[in-house]
């Protein structure tokens, strides 16, 4: 009996490692996910610290295992080089952010790094050229992100520039009509040299600032109608560009911020009703909307046309099964736009549906952390910005995962931080940084208040309650 059969030694080691790594990665990621939620259970600061460190170790382990599997698959030494650079970037961001964003939520940072790492591995597995570009973008924006807290602190008057945000946002969106190019059926790209920018990704952030700046002031009916009209203009421009995903995200974000600002369910209800009417209208008047719905209802009947993408995505997810085919063992070339809009399908195909479900839960954990921060925000403007960005983020995740799994019609948006795409990566890292930065500022403000209060010789009771609240803030507060 030949022990090695008819394959070479490295091949055998590789296939054994692929088989074992499937389960190892899933177990590690499941533990990571569990910690995302178990961290809420206790109030013990030391325990939380331990959990954060464990999460980091898990991330580095998964990264290393993936790199090893991919390397043994092709024996391409470049893979190791790319891995080393990624590792350096992850470690650098991990250390630097803890330093700059003092007291910020470590969980948010962990999740951001985890998602970035998953993206690196999957994009690199699909196309090496892509991942190098992605790393350049990620590195640049992560370095830039270090300055965001200073910016927020330096310019305290962000909330006075409402009109400016609105004008800038609409202008940037409209720019694609002048110098835009069409990609994947939507005219929402601007190509500069070898870079393709997606203005809507950046406007997403300014747009939330615009909403928060206005709605933090007043929420009477006439005012809301005015803000709604401007927000609607954003949405209409996006619809005209056929960027349905972005249009939906902008719309839902408006409703979310409006609801929190006004505290009135009636607005939310009216908005949703309006949305339904608009959707029915869009279905009847735009063929590309109908195409998406047809593909959603019956991808099999339209597999050679409208249903092609969704059907391919479901084939990949289903064939991968619960434990996946193993990293590098699937055929992502058979999924359209695998590196971007459909990266979730590739992840599920190769790393398994268990991993994919955990990924969904990690995204939810991200959102809960954002909300946790929003709840603690004192300044109304900051609170609304945090809510707006959180809603924007999670709704985008919903659209992309729901779309590729046929839960909802697919709208063609990226999975933030994981998908390949400079604009998307840039804007998401900025989003994370703004939320964290505002939180840091908020906490500093609180500490100053306390100091001032103490100086004014405030009775003990107040200090106690302050401390209590501080302890209660739990996770988001460290050190």
């Amino acid at each position, binding site marked *: 009996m030949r022990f090695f059969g008819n394959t070479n030694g490295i091949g055998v080691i590789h296939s054994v490692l692929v088989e074992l790594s499937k389960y190892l990665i899933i177990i590690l990621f499941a533990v990571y996910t569990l910690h995302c939620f178990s961290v809420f259970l206790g109030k013990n600061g030391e325990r939380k610290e331990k959990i954060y460190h464990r999460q980091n170790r898990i991330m580095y382990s998964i990264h290393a295992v993936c790199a090893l599997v991919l390397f043994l698959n092709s024996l391409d030494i470049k893979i190791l080089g790319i891995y080393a650079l990624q590792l350096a970037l992850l470690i650098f961001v991990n250390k630097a952010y803890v330093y700059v964003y003092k007291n910020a939520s470590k969980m948010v940072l962990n999740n951001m790094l985890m998602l970035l790492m998953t993206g690196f591995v999957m994009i690199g597995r699909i196309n090496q050229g892509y991942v190098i570009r992605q790393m350049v973008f990620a590195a640049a924006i992560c370095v830039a992100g270090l300055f965001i807290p200073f910016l927020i602190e330096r310019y305290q008057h962000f909330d006075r520039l409402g009109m400016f945000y609105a004008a800038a946002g609409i202008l940037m969106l409209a720019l694609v009509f002048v110098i835009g190019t069409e990609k994947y059926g939507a005219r929402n790209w601007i190509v500069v040299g070898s870079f393709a920018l997606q203005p809507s990704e950046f406007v997403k952030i300014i747009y939330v600032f615009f909403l928060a700046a206005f709605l933090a002031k007043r929420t009477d009916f006439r005012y809301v109608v005015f803000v709604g009209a401007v927000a609607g203009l954003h949405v209409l421009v996006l619809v005209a560009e056929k960027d349905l995903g972005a249009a939906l995200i902008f719309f839902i974000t408006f409703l979310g911020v409006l609801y929190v600002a006004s505290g009135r369910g009636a607005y939310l209800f009216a908005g949703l009703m309006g949305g339904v009417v608009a959707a029915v209208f869009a279905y009847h008047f735009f063929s590309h909307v109908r195409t998406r719905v047809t593909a959603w209802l019956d991808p099999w009947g339209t597999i050679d046309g409208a249903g092609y993408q969704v059907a391919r995505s479901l084939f990949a997810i289903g064939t991968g099964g619960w434990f996946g085919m193993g990293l590098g063992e699937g055929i992502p070339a058979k999924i359209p736009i695998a590196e971007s809009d459909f990266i979730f399908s590739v992840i599920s195909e190769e790393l398994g549906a268990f991993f994919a479900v955990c990924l969904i839960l990690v995204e939810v954990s991200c959102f809960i952390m954002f909300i946790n921060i929003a709840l603690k925000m004192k300044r109304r403007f900051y609170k609304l910005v945090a*809510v707006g960005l959180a*809603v924007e983020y999670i709704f985008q995740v919903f659209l992309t995962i729901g779309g590729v799994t046929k839960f909802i019609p697919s709208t063609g948006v990226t999975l933030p931080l994981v998908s390949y795409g400079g604009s998307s990566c840039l804007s998401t890292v900025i989003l994370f940084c703004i939320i964290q930065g505002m939180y840091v500022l908020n906490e500093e403000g609180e500490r100053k208040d306390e100091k001032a209060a103490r100086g004014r010789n405030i009775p003990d009771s107040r200090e106690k309650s302050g401390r209590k609240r501080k302890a209660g803030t739990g996770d988001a507060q460290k050190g």
Partner: protein
Amino acid sequence: MRRKAETLRPPKNRQVKKEGQGNLQIMRLTYVVVVVFLCMAGYFSWFMAAKSEKVINHPGNTLYEALAKKIRKGKILSADHKVLAKTKTDSSGKDTREYPYGKMFCHVVGRNTNSMTGIERSFCYTMLRSHINPVSKLVDTFRGEKSPGDNLVTTLDYGLQRAAYDGLGDYKGAVVALEPSTGKILAMVSKPAYDPNTVLVDWDSLISADAEDSKLVNRATQGLYPPGSTFKIMTAMEYLLEHPEKYDSFQYECKGSESFSGNVINCYNKERHGTLSLEMAFAKSCNGAFAKLGTEIDLSKFKKLNEKFYFNKALSLDFEYSKSRYSLETRSDLGEVTQTAIGQGKTLVTPLENALIAATIANNGVMMSPYCVDHVESDTGDVVKSFEPMEKGRIVKKELAEEIGEMMKSVVKKGTASSLNDLSYGVAGKTGSAEFDSEGTSHAWFVGYAPADEPKLVLSIVVEGAGTGSQYAVPVARKMFEEYLGR
């Protein structure tokens, strides 16, 4: 000091209120988001657990290439574990499929190359999963060998398949055999057949051969034939649905030929059947009587009845099939109505559809979903998944099914299939001779079941261009009944 504290409190409270403003709404939003995401995760898990197996076996999915690198596609076995298809690995590690019985099972089992068909296609991914224990799998991996995929145990009965295959002889045609109480497909033959072992080499000649031959077509599920007199089952059923009291009182005077406003309907060889009850008109397959029934039934109800039996409708089967076509409309002219009532119009059936009609009658009016894989087992014999019989629903009332059953018994006792009357368990059936061209050549049909009172085997047989059902299809049925039930 105390007073000071009190004066400070109100503004502080106001501030807290302002700080907390919106938090209630934020919490509500969060709950909604969490619920939506849990629904999405739940849906995703449900898809994986319940739907994905069916989805990935879609012919458009070509990802099996990736699986086939690690798993050796499993075997296809008959109900008594005879190997119908297996994978052979040559010295260079290349896999090919082997079919020990060659042409005999070629359509139902299908082929693995040149665009997969049959069970090979619809359970491709099932056979490319391996449920042997993880340690053995790891050992296989260490040895650089593929793990054996899961095996399929079909519902196909080897003896019955052989009887059908031999019974058809050199004729073109098709046979479907079902178990009426479960819907299990016991045999499925289509002739002419091709050898799946050499299909790769023979491909050019198979596809270039003249259309008459079409060996690649599974006639049992894809062949559309005029039903001939077997369709009188449907006509009689509709008539009795509308006029239940006429079962005993109906009478018809057959003169061998009758004209319905100029549309002449002849009996076979213009034979005069004389005065007939409904039962005898059915047993003797009197065309005049049934053309008359056709003029007395409600055409829109007749259409509904046929569609309940899955004419013009998708069947959701595990293999390639054509929808049977019922083509009468309420505005159809009398000529077409009378022709259709005796099974000669534009209405076309597949042998499988005809088998389903007979099986529904044999099963007291309840149609069972036809299926051909009984269970999936790992290479070490552990059952991985079993397929249970599934009802397609009650199509007609039990009483009506029994009345039609009685009439089908008369066909054997004193009608066109009387040559089967000597079988001890009793047979019920209906013959047909479906003319398909102006020269009067006809396809021979037999549909029926046995034992007549406790049906275990339903047959639907068509012999192309042979002649009458009594002469050419009934003998095939006889061989199969004898094989499966004895004499």
